[in-house]
């Protein structure tokens, strides 16, 4: 799975370049996220602006990343499309994750 990453201050911005985060890639995606967390990244922005489909396996990988991060860090989401947001609402994950319109708002929130 192609994923771009960059550091803005102490915030890691993760940008999946694939259109789908589904069961065929969720394990690999989760592994990359856990690697970044184990490298010491504690503030992470997940930019979903390139993603137009997530299934429950992909959502599970994102939730698992948040749980791996634990209470010492934060994982927020930005750029989510209206369609994908529907999945977050159905599963009530919109109450779990902070969701921002764009990357700069998300970085600003994590940098406070």
């Amino acid at each position, binding site marked *: 799975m192609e994923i771009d990453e960059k550091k803005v201050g102490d915030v890691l911005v993760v940008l999946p370049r694939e259109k*789908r985060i589904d069961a065929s890639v969720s394990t690999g995606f989760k592994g990359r996220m856990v690697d970044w967390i184990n490298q010491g990244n504690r503030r992470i922005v997940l930019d979903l602006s390139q993603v137009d*489909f997530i299934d*429950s396996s992909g959502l599970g990988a994102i939730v698992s990343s*948040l*749980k791996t991060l634990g*209470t010492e860090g934060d994982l927020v989401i930005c750029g989510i499309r209206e369609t994908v947001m529907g999945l977050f609402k159905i*599963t009530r994950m919109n109450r*779990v994750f902070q969701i921002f319109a764009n990357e700069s708002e998300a970085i600003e929130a994590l940098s406070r």
Partner: protein
Amino acid sequence: MPGPAQSPKTITFLVDSKLKNVSLAGVAVRGICSYLSLSDVDAYYLELCVVEAVNNAIRHAYDNEEGHVVEVDITYSSEEIVLDISDRGKPMSLYNPALPDYDPADLKALPEHGLGLYIINTVMDQVTYTSEDNRNTLRMKKKLYRS
């Protein structure tokens, strides 16, 4: 004024039991939803339900073993769409579409798995599961409201 009633039409396709192939079923459903002029959100939900059902068949009915077939039958009329996902593997022992009652603030309790059936049951108007003659079918029905 509503147009004349449309007789149901059906398309069937077969998916080899590999998770990598499930996206093909998904985009096929999305294409049909576009043809039916459904909204993007409704199309996403229907694609999601088919993907979840095919994933379940591959993982649970066939234990992730390749070389089996998952059949997707899509029947639509002007009023509703019916999505049948069938396999010839192990039947589901427990049909449990409930979402775990979790506290969003309790990290450890957040569900990572088992959301597929809950999503299907939430999105669809009617869901039935039958297992007869070594064929398991999850039937999902949704009334159509055009955008």
